């Protein structure tokens, strides 16, 4: 039997959670809500909810801005980035956890300490590198600097370290090569962590703004959605309803992705795959 103080306590807990959730949710709701209103409705503040579900804003925004192209660019960059990052992360994590070579732990420590360097500082060197690779203004300039991540490698390496060596020996005796062991045993075991990493990376890529702005200053054809949206707000004039529709277009794919992977993320996070 729950007594009274328990009930009060759990009520307070739910209340706190509810307020937190509401604060998180409200801007999204506002954005989506506004994207269905006509401009007049939006500015008159007469009703909270739209009178009708107006799809027209989306159509207009989609056509006025260069959204189809931005959308295509975003999808391409995100998919390629995530795929390459996953590949590199898996190999690096395996190398730094299970292979033996001189200086392994030292090199890794140096890499980890490099996470301290602020991203803005790296932008300069990355910019130079891209220029020298003659990729400036090409879509690959949005991908090449983001094909590896020390942070994700660190997470995955921690997981790999927790796998006992007897599994490796067992797999070797079962006839597997190092390569087969990695892909048949380690990677499937790490699936929850990998899904979490992939999703985090997808969100980061999708939302990447500064770098895209820098790179696409030479070529508007490689703009992705977030920068495209900003450009749209200045190019399309002050139409809040259209801005909101554009913003909705930008976030919806990530929300859908999140809903699909929700379960894996929760297991990935709750078993400590993301701690540290």
């Amino acid at each position: 039997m729950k007594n009274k103080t328990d009930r009060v306590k759990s009520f307070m807990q739910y209340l706190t959670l509810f307020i937190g959730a509401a604060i998180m949710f409200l801007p999204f709701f506002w954005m989506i809500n506004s994207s269905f209103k006509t401009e007049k409705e939006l500015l008159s503040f007469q009703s909270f909810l739209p009178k009708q579900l107006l799809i027209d804003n989306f159509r207009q925004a989609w056509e006025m801005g260069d959204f189809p192209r931005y959308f295509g660019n975003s999808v391409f960059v995100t998919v390629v980035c995530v795929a390459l990052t996953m590949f590199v992360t898996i190999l690096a994590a395996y190398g730094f956890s299970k292979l033996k070579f001189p200086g392994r732990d030292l090199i890794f420590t140096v890499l980890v300490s490099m996470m301290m360097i602020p991203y803005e500082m790296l932008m300069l060197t990355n910019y130079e590198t891209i220029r020298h690779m003659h990729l400036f203004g090409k879509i690959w300039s949005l991908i090449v600097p983001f094909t590896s991540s020390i942070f994700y490698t660190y997470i995955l390496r921690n997981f790999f370290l927790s796998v006992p060596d007897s599994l490796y020996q067992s797999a070797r005796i079962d006839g597997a090569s190092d390569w087969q062991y990695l892909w048949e045993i380690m990677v499937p075991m790490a699936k929850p962590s990998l899904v979490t990493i992939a999703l985090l990376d997808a969100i980061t890529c999708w939302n990447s703004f500064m770098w895209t702005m820098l790179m696409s200053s030479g070529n508007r054809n490689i703009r992705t959605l977030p920068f495209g949206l900003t450009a749209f707000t200045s190019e399309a004039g002050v139409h809040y309803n259209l801005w909101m529709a554009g913003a909705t277009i930008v976030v919806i794919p990530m929300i859908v992705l999140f809903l699909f992977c929700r379960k894996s993320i929760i297991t990935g996070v709750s078993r400590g795959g993301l701690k540290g």
Partner: protein
Amino acid sequence: MEVRIEDLVKRFDDVVAVNKVNATFESGKLIALLGPSGCGKSTMLNMLSGIMPVTEGKIYFDDRDVTMLSPDKREVGLVFQNYALYPHMSVLENICFPLKIKRVPKAERIEKAKEYARMVHIDDYLDRLPKELSGGQQQRVAIARALVKRPKLLLLDEPLSNLDAKLRVEMREEIRRIQRESGVTTVFVTHDQEEATSISDYIMLMKLGVKQQFAKTRNLYNDPANLFVADFIGNPTINQLHGIYEKGNFRPDAYENAIPIGRYQIEDGSRVVFASRPESVIVEKKNGKTVMEVEETYVSGKDTLCVLKAGDGRLRAYVDNDSAPQEKDLVSVSFRDRGVFVFNEESGERYYE
């Protein structure tokens, strides 16, 4: 497949884990690798499987030198002490894995895996994950996985140490049956002498990396090569009296009488250990022969275990309940021919008649 090891040595920095071991494991036999903790049993097994490189010496499978061969090419099955099942795979997938690596077609490998699952009586649990199985069930999965690829050599590293007493006895009979059915040469590591004697055809007993004796299981008990072997094998442990050998007699320390033990090739006056199995000690009513006092008696089943006092030393003897003496009685003691050995006190080396 016959396994032959020649002058096998494994060193870790300053520790010599396996020291110059020679042996031939006959094809189709079950060999127990026995010895106290840290004597190099696992090291030996790991070298046979190829997951640990050898420092010196050679390993032959039949006539093939496999010393440098990597584990995936050796065609061995290994059951680890902790089973090392793949945690994300079901029982069936675990057993299938070696065949999957060999690219056996899916239908065929599932059929094969099921066949071996039946053999180890695990076929009711094919869809479970390892963590949903008991220790004994996990072990059987590990055995099935090791056998499914039809290895030429099966290696088991203390596979029963995690099980309770009853399951241990059951499982060792099971292992014996599976080994007989499949006819695979098997090396079984254990530090439990009773487990080793109950299961094996041959026993190799080791101490600090050195082979002490490698012989048919029965011979290890009846014909130990040195004091360590005599002491390690047998329950209760063999009686040991320290003393001096003199002209066919043995004089235990601090004991007034001599025990006639027959002629050995020992210099008179040497210090020796006189060892006798409890069932080789004959206890009679006092009749003038070597007399000892009964210190304690324990009834166990149809026999009574008597502890006899011989100076500083103690002798344990099995006597029929009906003719058992009382505590404090004086009795006469003599010895059978079998199960009585004399060893050098210092080196533990055995003296022969």
